[in-house]
């Protein structure tokens, strides 16, 4: 029980911080909508219907990236991470708490992005929503771990996209497949598999990233 309450306290801290400063979520919302508008002008008129779904996934991945760039900002500036590592809480609880906060930010961005996509481009059905929800787990899990790595390096903002994008290519494949294929089940299954593998791996290895 204490593990879960640690996680809840850490996630609550991040959400409260965001509620007071409003640093990340408004930026993500604006970013995802402006990306969709840019896509409107980058798609030739006759290639719309299928290509638009691919671009939705590009927009989602880059929006997640934008949110992750700020995920450990406060921790780094105030040197919170050192303090958190010193507390008796399990280190993986830090990862899980941050992961949940990132997940909430992503969901908030998508609450705007998916209706906007529906309005501007193609219809969003239940399968697309399911794929997006599954993809969120993988994006948040892998992203949180890599953001912690990037925060420890000198390059920081520059490094995270380089680490993040090659690792989330499978999510894009699964997401696009589920959105446009007639039989989305195996793509959704693939997303579940990805989530399981990489969530467990990130959860288990986070301790090594924040300790010496």
């Amino acid at each position, binding site marked *: 029980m204490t593990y879960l309450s640690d996680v809840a306290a850490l996630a609550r801290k991040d959400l409260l911080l965001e509620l007071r400063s409003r640093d990340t979520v408004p930026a993500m919302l604006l970013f995802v909508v402006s990306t969709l508008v840019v896509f409107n002008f980058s798609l030739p008129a006759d290639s719309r219907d299928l290509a638009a779904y691919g671009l939705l996934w590009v927009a989602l991945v880059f929006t997640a990236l934008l949110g992750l760039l700020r995920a450990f900002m406060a921790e780094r500036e105030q040197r919170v991470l050192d303090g958190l590592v010193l507390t008796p809480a399990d280190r993986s609880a830090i990862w899980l708490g941050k992961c949940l906060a990132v997940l909430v930010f992503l969901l908030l961005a998508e609450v705007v992005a998916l209706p906007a996509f529906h309005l501007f481009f193609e219809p969003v059905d239940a399968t697309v929503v399911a794929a997006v929800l599954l993809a969120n787990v993988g994006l948040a899990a892998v992203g949180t771990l890599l953001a912690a790595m990037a925060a420890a390096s000198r390059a920081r903002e520059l490094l995270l996209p380089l680490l993040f994008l090659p690792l989330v290519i499978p999510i894009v494949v699964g997401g696009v497949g589920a959105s446009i294929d007639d039989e989305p089940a195996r793509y959704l299954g*693939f997303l579940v*598999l990805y989530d399981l593998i990489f969530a467990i791996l990130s959860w288990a290895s986070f301790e090594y990233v924040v300790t010496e």
Partner: protein
Amino acid sequence: LSTSLRNNRAAVLAATAALLLLTGVALAFYWVPNAPIEGFRQRIFYIHVPVALTAYACFGWAAWKALRLLSTRDARYDLESYTAVHMGVIFGILTLVTGSIWARTSWGVWWSWGERQLVLFLILFLFYSAYFMLRYSTEPGPRRANMSAVYALFGVVLIPVSFLAIRLAEGLIHPVVFDRDVGSNLATSQLVTVIVCFGGTLALAAALYTNELLGKRLDAQLRELREALT
């Protein structure tokens, strides 16, 4: 004395690599019959596939060393894991180059998104290039060693996941036009040649790895000495 022994090991490995690779190339040119459709030019297969397998072996070795680092916290595994990734990237680039040449000779294009192996190696190349970025932009120390190790472990998990993703994407985004399923029905002569070539590239990778590791260790020792003197 131990240094000279280690030097000899690299030399023995290098000689083995040269011998096996020369034998392999000779076998590929003179023993193996022409492929039914592709003809003579299909013989790049005997370099391309062993090089690709060697790259996987290097990445696997790097992950194994990373696992050892995380379980024992012994700093020497960090250097070994790093060197293995380094070799893996070199063989990965070779795979991309030979695969590209093969695609050019048999289909007339330098790149085909329908070729699983090539696409996978492109993803891996991007992934492991970021490994170097991570290392070079982080202060040396136990934390960098841990992060590199975790990243190397992610890589070895990413290989099968990406392969599955590419297979899924294949049927979806671009229909499979080319079928190059050579592996399913290899004749004995082909199998023997591939194995000899694979042994050669593996020995080459091991020789390069030993040599590189030796150089890096010397470098580290030299730096320690220099710091002790000043």
